[in-house]
């Protein structure tokens, strides 16, 4: 059995990004509004909220929601 190299690479990266404490999707979502406002304000959000950043690095759907929220806030602020 040979698993696909690209899949294996993703698993390897996921393993390397693993922390003993991680937040789940709802815990990340709970802080996502504060995190997004910090990012927009140019503040070091990842340092202030590392558990949010770690989750976003590992979870595609939550990352998509975060990026969509950022898009919305940026354009609403520009109105």
């Amino acid at each position, binding site marked *: 059995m040979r698993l696909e190299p690209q899949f294996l690479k993703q698993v390897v990266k996921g393993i390397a990004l693993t922390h003993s404490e991680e937040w789940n999707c709802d815990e990340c979502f709970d802080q996502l509004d504060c995190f997004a406002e910090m990012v927009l304000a140019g503040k070091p959000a990842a340092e202030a909220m590392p558990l949010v950043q770690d989750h976003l690095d590992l979870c595609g759907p939550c990352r998509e929601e975060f990026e969509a*929220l950022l898009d919305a806030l940026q354009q*609403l602020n520009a109105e």
Partner: protein
Amino acid sequence: MPEYSNQEWLEALRSADHNEALAELREYLKRSLRYALSSRVDPNRLDALIEDSAQDALLRILDKMDTFRGESRFTTWASKVAIRLALTELRRKRWENVALEDLVPEDTGIDYTPAVLTDTETSPEQQTYQREVMSLVERLIMTELTPRQRQVMIAILKGGMPIGEAAERLGTNPNALYKMLHDARQRMKNSLEEEGYSADEILEAFSKG
């Protein structure tokens, strides 16, 4: 639109005569959703998704308003709720005809030498290191994970299935499934470290491509 403070939003939405505030929030959410979704959704479906999501989000926001802690702007919090609802619905539609079993691993028979490794600007030493780690991880996937952990990891990482969709098919929720995947990753990380491979070195070696 008037710029309400968080307190003004909460008071207006909680008052008996909250129709005006609801209408304003609905319009705000629709603008927010359009900005959030326009590059992510088929233009033909965008308007309907925005309408439906704004309506669902209003109900959710009214229901969950007491959980808003005031640490961000109320409108940011409300946008977050609406965007999650919309993207969840979008994923549900995109994946409704796909079963977990459809996303099985393929036996490629590939050795890890060709293009996949050589297309990045990696040194021969790094390529050797990558090959070692990938072989070891493949073995760990096949020997240390439960069949369910393996199936879910493949469905999500290879098949691209969103975690919420995988959870629904397994009769569980995304948080529980995330925990299961975390346990699987942690277990493999421990095994790699026991074999002398550190996470920092691995990240460095795999940072390209």
